[in-house]
């Protein structure tokens, strides 16, 4: 994170020295783009706050730890699609699940859909790409996540035992 701040600051200073007018224009563009997307970000944040309330971590741990691995994989991929978590929460959570004996294919379905499929990012994504493309992309990536999970199951010997 610090590197990013430093790099941005350095680039900004260089830009300012090279061309003051252009740099001011860049800031104006940045601000305009940002203010345009703020309502979508706000919608996204509201959705996340409610969804994480409905699916708290202990509930996720309880649901993924039980039952048939294929059912768990499906549930994991659905929870992963609906929720959004930063990596520093998601992977420790996956680590806990692993210690409880949850198969890798289930963990893969969860973390990959978490990353690739975004129901809560829908309001932001549709601002840029439109409703149709947003739906198509998310559906395709959901299936990619399932394929990854199945191959994960094969590689770790969880499928075909």
């Amino acid at each position, binding site marked *: 994170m610090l590197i990013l701040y430093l790099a941005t600051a350095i680039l900004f200073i260089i830009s300012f020295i090279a061309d003051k007018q252009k740099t001011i224009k860049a800031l104006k563009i940045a601000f305009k783009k940002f203010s345009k997307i703020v309502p979508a970000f706000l919608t996204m944040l509201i959705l996340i706050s409610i969804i994480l309330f409905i699916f708290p971590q202990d509930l996720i741990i309880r649901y993924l730890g039980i039952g048939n691995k294929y059912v768990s994989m499906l549930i994991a991929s659905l929870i992963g699609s609906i929720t959004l978590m930063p990596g520093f929460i998601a992977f420790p959570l996956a680590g806990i699940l692993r210690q409880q004996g949850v198969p890798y294919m289930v963990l893969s379905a969860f973390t990959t859909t978490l990353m690739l499929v975004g129901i809560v990012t829908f309001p932001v994504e549709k601002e840029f790409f439109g409703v149709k493309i947003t739906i198509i992309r998310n559906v395709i990536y959901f299936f*990619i996540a399932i394929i990854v999970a199945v191959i*994960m199951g094969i590689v770790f010997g969880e499928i075909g035992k």
Partner: protein
Amino acid sequence: MKKFLKPIIFAIYFIFVGSSFIFNFESGELIGKNFLSFTFSMVKIIPVAFVLIGLFEVWIKRETIEKHLGDNSSWRGFLWAILLSGTTVGGLYVAFPIAAVLHKKGAKLSVIFTYIGASAVCRIPMVVFEASFLGIKFTLVRLLVSIPLIIISSVIMGNILIKTNYKIAKQ
């Protein structure tokens, strides 16, 4: 009517969360805390990302992007997209505006879709984190399977969209 719907929903939400804190309504407080923690993590990233997007837009020539990521770029365009995605921070919500500005500068659709998909699965800090919790083997399998699938689906999606004369929203 539709114009006022969003502000009304926002207002109801904030009044609900605000009064939950006043009246110690636990569920509402939890929702409010979730909101604050996510807002905080986004506030750390978003302004920087948008300043970089602004600088990118004024300094980088359209020809440069067209040449490396545009219609006539070879497989290297996809490689660039994946490398760039590795350095992306935050999440998809940062990748969308970057993808949009790349497209505006002439990057082709299949390349920007690859960038979006790749920035979901191969951001470097996240990959390191994942490997430390779930093992290198897990991370490698995930990357080796998902990246080719992301590229293939992006190419297919790009080709279909070009045929239907799709235009991404002006930002």
